[in-house]
């Protein structure tokens, strides 16, 4: 009632009732709409209250044990994929028992590979939502492409940009330049003309975020011209 249709999609989003395309469209809207970002947490909570309205049978006991076992296994094997802060924590706990861990890592990664697509897509979504749904996030309009850089107070940043598919063998790579050095913030692929990408480097106030086209897999230092720029 008197609501723009896209605002009303906040409810469908909270209920997880959007398909992939709609979800991307809405997340892009969310990045630029403070009132949706403010409304979202309350609607998410209302949606999740529905979880309590259904009978809750006792889960099988083995489920708990399986989850914890798998979590411990991952702690000792997936460490290199985590952030540096976590790596340091894991190292001090002595979880990296050298050879055994390496062997397990190889086994675990082969086991995981089939699930990785869905899993990483889901996790990426979680990360993006965390930044976009934070009303304290700052936004910077991009130069060079339509879109925005959304930076949470913690420095976590998400780039939302309209970008064409890169040429064969090339990929987009994001960079965060602070005090003269540009550090890679990861490579990404746009989908259907849009990229929503969570930078793998924190973005501090005054840093410059840039995007270049590079060889597949990315490069250690930028070689291409800067297609997109934003000063955070």
């Amino acid at each position, binding site marked *: *009632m008197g*609501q723009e*249709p896209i*605002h*009303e*999609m*906040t*409810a*469908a989003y909270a*209920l*997880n*009732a*959007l*398909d992939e395309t*709609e979800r991307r469209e809405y997340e892009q809207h969310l990045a630029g709409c403070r009132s949706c970002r403010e409304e979202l*947490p309350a609607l*998410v*909570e*209302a*949606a*999740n*209250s*529905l*979880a*309590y*309205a*259904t*009978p*809750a*049978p*006792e*889960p*099988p006991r083995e*489920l*708990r044990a*399986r*989850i*914890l076992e*798998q*979590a411990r296994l*991952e702690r000792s094997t*997936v460490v290199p994929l985590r952030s540096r*802060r*976590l790596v340091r*924590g*894991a190292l001090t*706990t002595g*979880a990296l028992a050298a050879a055994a861990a390496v062997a397990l890592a190889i086994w675990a990664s082969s086991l995981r590979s089939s699930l990785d697509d*869905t*899993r990483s897509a*889901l*996790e990426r*979504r*979680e990360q993006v939502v*965390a930044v976009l*749904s*934070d*009303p*304290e996030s700052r936004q910077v309009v991009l130069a060079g492409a339509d879109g925005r850089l959304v930076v*949470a107070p913690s420095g976590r940043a998400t780039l939302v940009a309209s970008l064409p598919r890169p040429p064969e063998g090339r990929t987009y790579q994001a960079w965060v330049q602070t005090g003269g050095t540009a550090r890679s913030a990861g490579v990404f692929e746009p989908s259907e003309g849009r990229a929503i990408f969570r930078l793998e480097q924190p973005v501090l106030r005054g840093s410059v975020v840039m995007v270049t086209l590079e060889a597949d897999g990315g490069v250690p230092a930028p070689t291409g011209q800067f297609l997109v720029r934003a000063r955070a």
Partner: protein
Amino acid sequence: MVAYTPVVAYPLRTFARTKPLQRDVAHLSDEALIALVARGEDDALAALYDRYGRVAYGLAVRVVRDPTLAEDAVQEAFLTVWRSSGRFVAERSKASSWILTIVHRRAVDVVRREERRRSEPLVQPPAPPELTDDAAWLRLERERVQTALKSLPDAQREALELAYYGGFTQSELADRLGQPLGTIKSRMFAGLRQLRELLTVQASEKDPWDKSRSTR
């Protein structure tokens, strides 16, 4: 100060301090537990599972309608919590809500892959005997949300239930209910806001009752 503690108490205290995470996490807030999970403390993950595993499993069973698939969804969801807890932003959402969102997404992902799913009618398993405090609390909570849900207009309740429990997208709902997409969006939006209102009002009305009860 410790030096003046009676001898008997001293070793007990020392013992407790040497393994703090084994026992103490159960008293922490959800948010504190998530912070520990982000540091790789599996006891904290266990405590979160003890708090939300049952609701999570109930939700997953309701959505995917298959106990084995439900277990898989819950397992994957808690492992997602384990891997991505560092990204949880406490100021933006309650930890319980964050966890349930992940569980719900998992379950819906499963059900959208399995096309057998949602043409089947909703079958509610008979409620098991509720003997523990935990079960009793869950039952009260269920009654509270069900009461709120029942007071919504039928069309809104139907849209919310089909979306949340059925895993239908808004477009699928529009097809199924023979309504324009805009109508479905409005129903979900109005319904969810209204539900939020009802639950908030109930919660604030409940406070004085709780106080009078605790002074007894």
